[in-house]
C-alpha cells in the first residue's frame, strides 16, 4: 500500500515529525514501511556506508530552482517544427522556455493565452531525472543552444520530477496553483510503501494509516470533511428525484452480501480529474482514467471502500430490452453465479463462472463480478451522463476464491478478501458521490438505496487489569487501558478494574470471548509500545524432562560418521521417479499436486538415490565420502505417508589424499566401507553383528555386497554399486561403494554397554597362518578361533590373505595375529597349548592346514 504523506495530512497534523519518524512509528506498530519514495520533500542526507533506516529512493526538489509558473503564450520555434518556445512567467520575471511537449503543442501560434497554463518550472542548475533516458537517470539543467535558440530551463513532466513514469507531456497544474511558489511547498511529497498484514486490512487506506498515527502519537484526527478538495461538498447541487424511486435491491444471500448501497449522480461531464488528484493517484500506484473512475479509486484509497460505477442509462436500456417497461424501477439482484454461467468483464474477457462466484445482476442478466471486476456492458464510457454508484460489502472467502479462480487480483478484491466493514459501504457511496459532483459538475440525487440484512457484531470486550498483567506482564490501570484503546476509537467504559471496550465500526478483526481478549490485548501492547514492555525471566516451573532419545541417537550417529571422515550432506526431499529410477524403481510415490518442476514432482523414496546425485555433482573431486540421514516417504493411498528414517553412505575416489609426495593412492573399496561400518556400529554400542553376502540387491554388485545383521535381524546393506547402475551416472572410473541403513531397525537393536577389562599382565603375541578352501569365509575362521580360544584370546586380527601356486588352486592362506592374555603372566607353553587346540579345531571344522 503506497501512502503519500500529503494525503495523510488531510487527516492528521504531522508537523514536527520527519518522514522517517512517521515510517519508524508505523513500522514498530506492525505497519512495516518497506520503502520511502521521495517526490519533492527534502530527503535525509546519507553518506555512503552510513546507516539508512529505510530503503529510500526518489529526489527532493530545490526550493529556489523549482517553482510554479504560468505559460502565457506558446510560440513557434524559428528553426524546428516540432519544438515550441514558451513565454513563461516564474513569479518574478518572464522567461523563454524551449519545449517539445505534445500536450501544449496545439496552442502553438494561437497568440497570448486567454487562460494561462500553470506548469512546473525548473531553472538552470536544477537536478532532476532525465525524461528521455531509460529508467531513472539524474541530470542537471545546463545552458545550451538548441537549433539556434538558447535554452537554460524547462517545464517538467512527472517523470522528470520523480512522480511517475509519465513523460508523454508536461504537467498541467490546476488553475489555482500559486505562481512563484516553490514547487516543493505546493506539492512536494514522499510516499510510504507499507506492507499490510492480514489483520491490518482495515488500514489499507489513507484514513486507516492516519488513525494509527493518531493513536501512536496521541494526536487528534482532523474533523471529517476537511478533505483534499479543501471545501465542504455538502452544498453541491441536488437533483430532485430520489434514487429510491428509481432503483431497488434484492440480496438473495446475506452471508455473501451483508450490505448493498446505491446512490446516483446526474448530468455529469466525463473529463480528466484535477491534476492534484491525478498526482495522488499516481503516487499511490493507480492510473488516473477519468473523473468518475478516479472518484471510485480515490475513495477506495482514501477510506478503504471499493466502489463500482454503473452507467444508469445502459441499465434502463436493458430493462427495456426484456419488455418490462411497466416497472419503472431498476432491480439490482445479488446472488451466487450458476455453474457454467458466463460474463464478459470490462477487460473484454468472457469468463465462465462457478457457484463460488457472486454476481451483481439486473432482471436481464449479470452486470458485474461482485467485488472483483465489473462487466463490460454497463461500464462508464465517455458518453455516460448518469451514474448509479454501488458501495457494497462482500463475503471475504467468496471474493478470495473468485479472485484466485479467475486470476484477477485487484485493489478491490485485495480489500474485500481481507474484510471491509459494511459500515464503510454507506460512507463510501457518499464520499464517492461528493467527489464526482465536485470533479464532474453533476447533481447528486437525494437519498441512498440501502439494504443491510447482516450487521457485524462489533464485539464489546471486557479487559481487566489482571488480564493485562497475566498476558502482557505489565501493570496498567483500567483508565490507562481505556485511554490506549480510545486512541484507536474503541468506545470504552471503565468499571473498577475492568474496561468494556466496544469495537469501532470500521474493523472486523476483533473476535469474541478469549479470542477477542487476545485481539484487544494486542492493541493495548501495540499502542503502549512493545519497546516499553519490560524483559522478565519465566517464573513458571520447569516442565517434565522428556527429552528426545531418537533425535539424540541420530545426532550421535552423525558425530560418529563425521569422525570417520564422512561428510554430511542434506538433499532436496523432492525428486522424480526417473531420477530415482537410475538406482531403484518404484511404482508409487507421494506425488505433489503442484510441483515447481517435473524433476521435483514426487517425494523421495530412496535416500541413497539423493546421495548419489550429490556424489555425481562432486564427481570431479579426487575423493568423496558422504552420508545423509533423513526421511523417505512411502505412499499410503490417500492417507499420510510413512516417513521412515534412513542413513545412506557413499564413497568413491582415492583412499589417501594425494600430496606432493603421495601419489597414486588406491581407490576406496568394499573394505573401506566395511571398516567404517564396523566402527559406526561399535560406536552405537551394537554387538551381535554379522555380514552375509547377498546378491539380492538390484543396485549392488552381486558378489561384492553384504547384508548387515544385528542379532540376526537385517538392518542394512552395503557393497559396490552394480556396474550397470554405475553406468547410468556420470561417475569417474573408481568403484562407488554405498551403504543404506534402516535407522528405525538399527535403533531398535539393543545396545550393549559392557567393556573388556584391560589386563596389566603382559600379553603373548603370536601369528598363525592356515590354508583353507576358497569357499571358507574368513568370518567363520575367526569365529572358530575366538570360540576355541575363549576368554584367553583377546584379539584376533587377520593381517594377510594370500594365494599362489604353492598353496594350490582353490585355496587361500589366512594369516592371523593372536593376542593371548590372562589374569596372570602367561607362559609360552600355556599359549602353545591353546594354539594347538585352535589349529586342531580348524582342521576338524574347515579342513584347515597349518602353513609352515
Amino acid at each position: 500500500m503506497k501512502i503519500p504523506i500529503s494525503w495523510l495530512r488531510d487527516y492528521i497534523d504531522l508537523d514536527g515529525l520527519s518522514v522517517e519518524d512517521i515510517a519508524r512509528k508505523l513500522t514498530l506498530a506492525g505497519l512495516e514501511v518497506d520503502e520511502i519514495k521521495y517526490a519533492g520533500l527534502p530527503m535525509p542526507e546519507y553518506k555512503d556506508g552510513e546507516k539508512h533506516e529505510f530503503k529510500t529512493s526518489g529526489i527532493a526538489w530545490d526550493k529556489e530552482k523549482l517553482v510554479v509558473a504560468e505559460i502565457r503564450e506558446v510560440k513557434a520555434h524559428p528553426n524546428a517544427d516540432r519544438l515550441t518556445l514558451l513565454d513563461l512567467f516564474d513569479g518574478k520575471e518572464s522567461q523563454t522556455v524551449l519545449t517539445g511537449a505534445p500536450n501544449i503543442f496545439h496552442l502553438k501560434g494561437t497568440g497570448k493565452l486567454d487562460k494561462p497554463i500553470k506548469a512546473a518550472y525548473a531553472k538552470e542548475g536544477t537536478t532532476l531525472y532525465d525524461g528521455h533516458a531509460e529508467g531513472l537517470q539524474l541530470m542537471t539543467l545546463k545552458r545550451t543552444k538548441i537549433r539556434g535558440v538558447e535554452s537554460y530551463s524547462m517545464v517538467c513532466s512527472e517523470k522528470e520530477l520523480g512522480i511517475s513514469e509519465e513523460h508523454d507531456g508536461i504537467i498541467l497544474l490546476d488553475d489555482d496553483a500559486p505562481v512563484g511558489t516553490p514547487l516543493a511547498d505546493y506539492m512536494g511529497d514522499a510516499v510510504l510503501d507499507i506492507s499490510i498484514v492480514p489483520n491490518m486490512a482495515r488500514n489499507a487506506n489513507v484514513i486507516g494509516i492516519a488513525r494509527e498515527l493518531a493513536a501512536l502519537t496521541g494526536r487528534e484526527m482532523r474533523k471529517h470533511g476537511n478533505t483534499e478538495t479543501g471545501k465542504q461538498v455538502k452544498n453541491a447541487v441536488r437533483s430532485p428525484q430520489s434514487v429510491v424511486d428509481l432503483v431497488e435491491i434484492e440480496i438473495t444471500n446475506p452471508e455473501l452480501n451483508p450490505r448493498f448501497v446505491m446512490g446516483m449522480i446526474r448530468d455529469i461531464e466525463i473529463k480528466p480529474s484535477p491534476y492534484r488528484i491525478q498526482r495522488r493517484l499516481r503516487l499511490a500506484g493507480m492510473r488516473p482514467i477519468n473523473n468518475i473512475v478516479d472518484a471510485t479509486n480515490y475513495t477506495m484509497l482514501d477510506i478503504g471502500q471499493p466502489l463500482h460505477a454503473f452507467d444508469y442509462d445502459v441499465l434502463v436500456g436493458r430493462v427495456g430490452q426484456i419488455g418490462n417497461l411497466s416497472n419503472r424501477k431498476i432491480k439490482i439482484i445479488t446472488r451466487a453465479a450458476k455453474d457454467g454461467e458466463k460474463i464478459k468483464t470490462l477487460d473484454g474477457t468472457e469468463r465462465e463462472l462457478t457457484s463460488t462466484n457472486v454476481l451483481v445482476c439486473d432482471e436481464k442478466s449479470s452486470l458485474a463480478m461482485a467485488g472483483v471486476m465489473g462487466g463490460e456492458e454497463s461500464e462508464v464510457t465517455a458518453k455516460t451522463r448518469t451514474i448509479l454508484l454501488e458501495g457494497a460489502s462482500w463475503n471475504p472467502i467468496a471474493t478470495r476464491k473468485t479472485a484466485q479462480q479467475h486470476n484477477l487480483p485487484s485493489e478491490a478484491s485485495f480489500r474485500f478478501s481481507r474484510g471491509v466493514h459494511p459500515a464503510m459501504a454507506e460512507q463510501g457511496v457518499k464520499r464517492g458521490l461528493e467527489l464526482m459532483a465536485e470533479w464532474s459538475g453533476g447533481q447528486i440525487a437525494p437519498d441512498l438505496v440501502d439494504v443491510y440484512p447482516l450487521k457485524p457484531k462489533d464485539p464489546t470486550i471486557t479487559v481487566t487489569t489482571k488480564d493485562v498483567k497475566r498476558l502482557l506482564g505489565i501493570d496498567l490501570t483500567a483508565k490507562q487501558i481505556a485511554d490506549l484503546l480510545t486512541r484507536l476509537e474503541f468506545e470504552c467504559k471503565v468499571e473498577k478494574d475492568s474496561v468494556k471496550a466496544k469495537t469501532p465500526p470500521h474493523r472486523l478483526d476483533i473476535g469474541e470471548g478469549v479470542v477477542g481478549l487476545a485481539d484487544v490485548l494486542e492493541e493495548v501492547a501495540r499502542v503502549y509500545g512493545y519497546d516499553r514492555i519490560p524483559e522478565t525471566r519465566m517464573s513458571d516451573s520447569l516442565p517434565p524432562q522428556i527429552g528426545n532419545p531418537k533425535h539424540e541417537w541420530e545426532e550421535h550417529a552423525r558425530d560418529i560418521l563425521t569422525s570417520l571422515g564422512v561428510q554430511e550432506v542434506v538433499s532436496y526431499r523432492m525428486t522424480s521417479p526417473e531420477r530415482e529410477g537410475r538406482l531403484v524403481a518404484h511404482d508409487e510415490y507421494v506425488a505433489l499436486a503442484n510441483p515447481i518442476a517435473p524433476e521435483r514432482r514426487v517425494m523421495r523414496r530412496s535416500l541413497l538415490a539423493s546421495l548419489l546425485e550429490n556424489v555425481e555433482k562432486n564427481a570431479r573431486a579426487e575423493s568423496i565420502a558422504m552420508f545423509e540421514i533423513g526421511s523417505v516417504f512411502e505412499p499410503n493411498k490417500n492417507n499420510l505417508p510413512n516417513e521412515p528414517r534412513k542413513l545412506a553412505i557413499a564413497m568413491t575416489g582415492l583412499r589417501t589424499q594425494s600430496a606432493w609426495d603421495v601419489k597414486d593412492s588406491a581407490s576406496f573399496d568394499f573394505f573401506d566401507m566395511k571398516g567404517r561400518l564396523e566402527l559406526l556400529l561399535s560406536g552405537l554400542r551394537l554387538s551381535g553383528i554379522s555380514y552375509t553376502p547377498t546378491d539380492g540387491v538390484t543396485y549392488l554388485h552381486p558378489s561384492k555386497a553384504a547384508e548387515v545383521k544385528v542379532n540376526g535381524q537385517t538392518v542394512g546393506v552395503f557393497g559396490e554399486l552394480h556396474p550397470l547402475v554405475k553406468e547410468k551416472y556420470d561417475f569417474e572410473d573408481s568403484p562407488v561403494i554405498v551403504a543404506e541403513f534402516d535407522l528405525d531397525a538399527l535403533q531398535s537393536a539393543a545396545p550393549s554397554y559392557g567393556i573388556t577389562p584391560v589386563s596389566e599382565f603382559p600379553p603373548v603375541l603370536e601369528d598363525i597362518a592356515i590354508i583353507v578352501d576358497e569357499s571358507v569365509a574368513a568370518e567363520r575362521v575367526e569365529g572358530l578361533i575366538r570360540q576355541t580360544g575363549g576368554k584367553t584370546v583377546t584379539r584376533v586380527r587377520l593381517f594377510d590373505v594370500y594365494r599362489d601356486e604353492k598353496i594350490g588352486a582353490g585355496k587361500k592362506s589366512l594369516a592371523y595375529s593372536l593376542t593371548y592374555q590372562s589374569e596372570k603372566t602367561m607362559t609360552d607353553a600355556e599359549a602353545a597349548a591353546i594354539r594347538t587346540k585352535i589349529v586342531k579345531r580348524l582342521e576338524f571344522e574347515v579342513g584347515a592346514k597349518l602353513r609352515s
Partner: protein
Amino acid sequence: MLDKLNEIEKSALESLQSITDSAALEAWRVSHLGRSSPLMTVFAGLGKLSKEERPAVGSGANRVKVALESALEERSKIVKSAALAKSLEEDALDVTLPGRGIHVGRLHPSTQQLRKVMSILADMGFQVYTSREVETDEYNFQLLNFPPNHPARDMQDTFFVEAEGRGDNPILLRTHTSPGQIHAMREYAATNPDNPPSIRIALPGMCFRYEQITARSEIQFNQVEGLVVGENITFADLKGTLNDFARRMFGQDARTRFRASYFPFTEPSAEVDVECFVCGGKGCGVCKNSGWLEILGCGMVHPVVLQNGGYDPSRYSGFAWGMGPERQLMLRYKIDDIRYFWGNDLRFLEQF
C-alpha cells in the same frame, strides 16, 4: 718393551686425531684395541716374560689400554657431535611445503547451525520435539488458526500432495514446524487432561514452501521453533527469553528491537530485529544499511491454538517463536545464494 708400548701408544693416538667418521673410528678400534692389535699382542705375550719384567710391562700395557680407550671415547664424542651438526644442517625441511591432508567429515552447515541453536535452547531448558514433514491441512493450518481460505494462507505458499477424497483436509508438505506445536501440546495434555503440564520445547526440522528456486528463495528450508506453555507466561517473559537467547546467539552486547507483526497462531505477534552483527549497527551491505537484521518471528500463543492443543486459554498462556538456521548462516557468513545449502558442493561444505 716399555719403549715398544710407548711407541704403540704414540702412533695409535696420532692416527686417532685424523678420524672424522664412525666407520673409521670402528676400524681404528679393531686395529688398535682388537684381538690382534699390537697392544693385545703385548698382553698375550705377558706369560712369556720373566717374573721381574712382567709387572712393569703389565702395568704399562694396562696404562696404554686405558689411555687408548679414553682417547677413543673422547674422539667418538667429537665425531658424533660433528655428525649431528652436519645432519641438523643437511636435513633442513622446506617448511613452506603444504601439509599432508586427511579425509575429514563435517556436519552440513545447517546441522551445525541447528545444533548451535538447540544447544543454547537446551541450556535454557527447552527439549527437542520432532514431528513429520508431510502433514494434513488440519495440523499445518486449521488447528493453528488458519481457517480455509484465510488470507494468511497467502503468506505461506504450499505444496499439496495428490490425494483423493480429503475434502477440506488435503495432505501437504508442512510450511513450518508449527504443526509440531499441536502434536506436542496434545501429547503433553493427554498425560493429564485436567491439569496439563507446562511445556518448554524446541521444534527443529525441514519445511517447504511453493517457491521458485533462485538465489533468494528455496523450496525447502530448516526452521527451529520454540514453544512455551504454562500458567504464568507473559509477553514480558517472551521478551526476556528471546533477548536471553539473542545474547547467547549473537553476543552479550546484542541489541534487539520488537516490531508488531501478524501470525495467525500468535497474538500479540512480533518480529524481532537484532542490531547488525556484521557492522554493529552502523550500516553495511548485509543489513542493507539499516543497522538491523530480521531474525525471528514470535508472539503469545493464540487462544484458539491453546484450545486446540488441549490447554484452557483462560488458565494457560504461552509464547512461540520461529527462526531459520539457513538465514542465520547467510547473514553470518555473507552467503548471497541460498542454493548453496542443498547444492552440497563439497567446495562449499568444506568451508564450515
